[in-house]
């Protein structure tokens, strides 16, 4: 007993001794000093800020014109060198110029697209294959009182291109600052901060302690001290920028959206007070006196709130409203927004006879600026550049695809068996066979009715109803959603997704699966088109360039309907969308749902099942 007790006693004594020692060490110092423990907490909180600055500083751009005069700021958001800034910065600098990064180097930049209405522009930095970049946050998560850091080049103070950092808090969210000129430089739903924002900060990032960009600084309230910060700065929210990114990448001069109807506060309700009778929203059923309950899925409590929200949307955006009519019924309306026009520039610059070298560059830039502002809003100004970005983001989608698959490799095809549902009721079964070459074969077995089969061999389409295989045109194929959904899942893992439907271009911005998306357009030699949509960000505001929708019709209307894809899951080396829905119309009414029962590798190595020639000849025999 003795020999076993003593070690235990020793251990116990030692534990007590150590505990006592720790108590003494953590005893707080006097008021004139700070205890080491408290000091560590203070330094740890400070470190969070230092880490956030380290994360972002490499991506902050000092923007100049070609003479390296003037000053604005920007932030790189894509490693290929795509940066966001303000429209009024490029108005001052031109359609090209010089940029400085925190590495101390200067780079050339070109303008891609601009949005004068909301004061957002994007530029392309040149000279490096990979640039440091920052990620956009979900600005809906920003709260008053959050720390807000701004980085940029106020008063053009930087000499080594290192950005200026200022610290403050978010003073207000969803603020409104009136614009200037015709429908320009309006800051709606913007973030107000007391971080020091001065001339030169414009276009630079506002970011949180996680190092994510919550907004782009662009304006301030200035007192009669002149244009010097007095504690009120405003930043365009990152979510608004996401809404406009696709149109800007498409090289457009982008307009902002309007319903051509207005609402005002009346006795605690938000009521339609003006409406253009010929507008799309009037045709869709909105009337004077209707009470606005929701706009873009947000409950509306004031007319100001509606006005703020609509400032964040581009022309063409499919906006949804929920209204209460005069008879108390609830109605949902979805319409594409009309554009708020800008004033056209005056006269083009007069060409000069035999200009001197330095004058020639000036004249070129002046002409380019004129061309930009005179451009047809919504038109693709630079088709070559547009196609470059179409390829770039298709590449991003392929990168997302590979990343989501992880280590899984694919050698074999895949057979997917789905239950087909309409309004929750099973109406049939669908079996899709996908081949690594992009070929697909789809068999639809409705509960009542004949079996339908579709086939795509990579080039040609065929359909079999009532026993005989017949060739289909591409146009007919685009109107068959069941064939399309399989073809899409097979196509996106090939080297050139959707190439069969023609050359791909960036059509513009749109909403798909409730989030901003790039709408791509394929145009085949017969001038027949096809659309597919890619989301740039997922619901957590992380980058995830996934395919979300396809259709032969921009509004998912017409016979072809549209198919939406969600919840991509890896299966045997393939990515399959667990949620596929055939939708109809701008409001994306669900018509038919495909629910996965099983997804198994196609063990039959022969691809005879996709040999259209053979099958058609067989049928003809």
């Amino acid at each position, binding site marked *: 007993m003795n020999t076993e007790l003593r070690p235990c006693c020793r251990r116990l004594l030692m534990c007590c001794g150590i505990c006592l020692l720790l108590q003494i060490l953590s005893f707080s110092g006097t008021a004139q000093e700070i205890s080491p423990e408290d000091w560590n907490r203070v330094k740890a909180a400070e470190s969070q800020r*230092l880490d956030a600055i380290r994360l972002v500083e490499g991506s902050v751009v000092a923007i100049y014109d070609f003479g390296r005069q003037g000053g604005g700021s920007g932030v790189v958001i894509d490693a290929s060198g795509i940066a966001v800034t303000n429209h009024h910065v490029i108005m001052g600098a031109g359609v090209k110029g010089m940029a400085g990064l925190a590495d101390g180097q200067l780079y050339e930049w070109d303008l891609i697209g601009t949005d004068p209405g909301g004061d957002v522009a994007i530029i392309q930095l040149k000279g490096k294959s990979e640039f440091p970049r920052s990620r956009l946050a979900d600005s809906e998560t920003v709260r008053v009182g959050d720390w807000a850091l701004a980085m940029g080049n106020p008063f053009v103070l930087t000499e*080594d291109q290192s950005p200026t950092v*200022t610290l403050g808090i978010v003073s207000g969210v969803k603020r409104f600052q009136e614009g200037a000129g015709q429908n320009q430089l309006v800051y709606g739903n913007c973030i107000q901060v007391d971080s020091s924002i001065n001339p030169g900060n414009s276009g630079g990032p506002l970011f949180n302690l996680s190092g994510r960009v919550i907004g782009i600084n662009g304006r301030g309230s200035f007192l009669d001290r002149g244009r010097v910060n007095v504690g009120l700065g405003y930043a365009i929210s990152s979510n608004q920028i996401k809404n406009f990114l696709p149109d800007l990448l498409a090289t457009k001069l982008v307009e902002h959206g309007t319903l051509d109807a207005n609402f005002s506060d009346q006795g605690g309700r938000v009521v339609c007070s003006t409406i253009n009778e010929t507008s799309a929203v009037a045709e869709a059923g909105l009337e004077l006196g209707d009470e606005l309950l929701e706009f873009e899925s947000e409950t509306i409590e004031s007319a100001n709130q509606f006005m703020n929200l609509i400032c964040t949307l581009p022309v063409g955006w499919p906006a949804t409203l929920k209204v209460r009519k005069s008879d108390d019924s609830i109605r949902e309306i979805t319409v594409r927004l009309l554009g708020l026009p800008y004033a056209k520039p005056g006269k083009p610059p007069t060409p000069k006879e035999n200009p001197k070298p330095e004058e020639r560059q000036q004249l070129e830039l002046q002409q380019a600026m004129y061309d930009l502002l005179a451009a047809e809003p919504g038109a693709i100004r630079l088709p070559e550049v547009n196609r470059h970005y179409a390829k770039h983001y298709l590449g991003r989608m392929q990168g997302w695809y590979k990343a989501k698959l992880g280590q899984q490799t694919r050698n074999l095809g895949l057979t997917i068996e789905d239950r087909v549902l309409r309004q929750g009721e099973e109406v049939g079964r669908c079996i899709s066979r996908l081949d690594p070459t992009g070929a697909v074969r789809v068999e639809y077995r409705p509960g009542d009715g004949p079996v339908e089969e579709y086939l795509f061999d990579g080039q040609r389409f065929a359909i079999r109803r009532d026993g005989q295989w017949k060739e289909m045109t591409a146009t007919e194929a685009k109107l068959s959603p069941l064939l399309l959904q399989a073809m899409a899942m097979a196509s996106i893992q090939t080297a050139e997704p959707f190439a069969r439907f023609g050359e791909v271009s960036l059509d513009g911005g749109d909403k798909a699966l409730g989030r901003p998306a790039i709408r791509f357009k394929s145009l085949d030699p017969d001038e027949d088109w096809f659309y597919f949509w890619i989301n740039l960000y997922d619901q957590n505001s992380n980058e995830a360039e996934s395919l979300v929708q396809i259709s032969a019709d921009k509004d998912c209307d017409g016979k072809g309907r549209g198919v939406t894809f969600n919840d991509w899951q890896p299966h045997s080396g393939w990515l399959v969308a667990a949620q596929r829905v055939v939708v109809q119309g701008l409001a994306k009414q669900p018509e038919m749902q495909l629910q996965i029962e099983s997804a198994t590798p196609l063990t039959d190595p022969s691809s005879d099942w996709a040999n259209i020639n053979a099958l058609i000849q067989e049928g003809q025999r």
Partner: protein
Amino acid sequence: MRLMQRCQPHWSRLSFWVVNATILVFSCLAARQLPAQEPSDAERLTAMVLTSKAFRVAAAKIQPALVTIESFGGVSAVQGKIGGIRQQGEGNTTGVMISPDGYIITSTFNFIKRPPVITVITSDGQRRVAQLLGRDDTRKICLLKIDGVQGMPVPELVSPTDVVVGQWAISVGVGFGDANAAISAGIVSAKNRIGGKAIQTDANISPACYGGPLIDLEGRLIGICVPLNPQSQAIGAGVEWYDSGIGFAIPLVGAESLIERLKAGERIQPAFLGVQGAPDPQGKGLLLNQVSPGTAAAAAGLKAEDVLVSVNGEPTKDLMSLRSILGRFEAGKELEVELIPKGESEAKKIQLVLGAPPADPNQSQLEPPKIR
């Protein structure tokens, strides 16, 4: 029991290693895979309250080295501007004791009026007459001396290399007229500003603290608060940015030889070349379009349509790079300049002595008028 005792050595050795290995592995895993824990609201609040305490402790640490400067008389501009500003405040200003025998650093801004009489109240409450010695117009700092003192408290300095962009920075000044100093908390916004001479901060910097210290959380001196604006050399230039989140402080680490020159009464002026230009379309350098008469450029024989290729070996592609190179030198400095004279194609190198900005009748001397 005897059996256990015999077996125990093996068991205990094994269990010893197993238990400790487990603890080690567990702690390593915990340290690496612990999910990024966001501090709770209560923890954030505590950190902020403790930061306030740190501000107070830091301010208390610099307080013994703080001095209050009183000026009597001098010129004040009511109609025109003096020192670049229309009206200077009437109150006391701030300085920092930098040597135990009574040398005090402050800002030239505090003496725009050229007061004939300057007194200084040190932290022990004693008031003494002070002499104004040398000044550096490029940094807007100057040196005072009080006599008959020893063992005066001086601040601990922190080197700019140890200053981190984003860290806390607190300005301290007595300019509001109270015996106690006022503080403002901000961060270090950038380093290497104004020709590499200043550290930039977004703490409130204004006449209330010009000449006073910008300190870090440990109470060490980051620099002396001064008004600066790269667009103008007037003494008061930069005051238009007071309390705007754009402020500057001049670090004293590395300024030892400068202080010696100020002790000797030297006046250091900014470098001035006297040219205007734009980037040469062929990219060779800065194409000059104007050379002001009576300036260093004119004296060296530079002419309009010459192309300035480099100054001191650094390429001058545009006016901005020229300004930023010149910003690092003083008037009187001799430099090598490379240029392509008008009409020629070969570049040649010449020596050039930098001049001072053209004399401004208002601020040509800070020397006080004769006193009785």
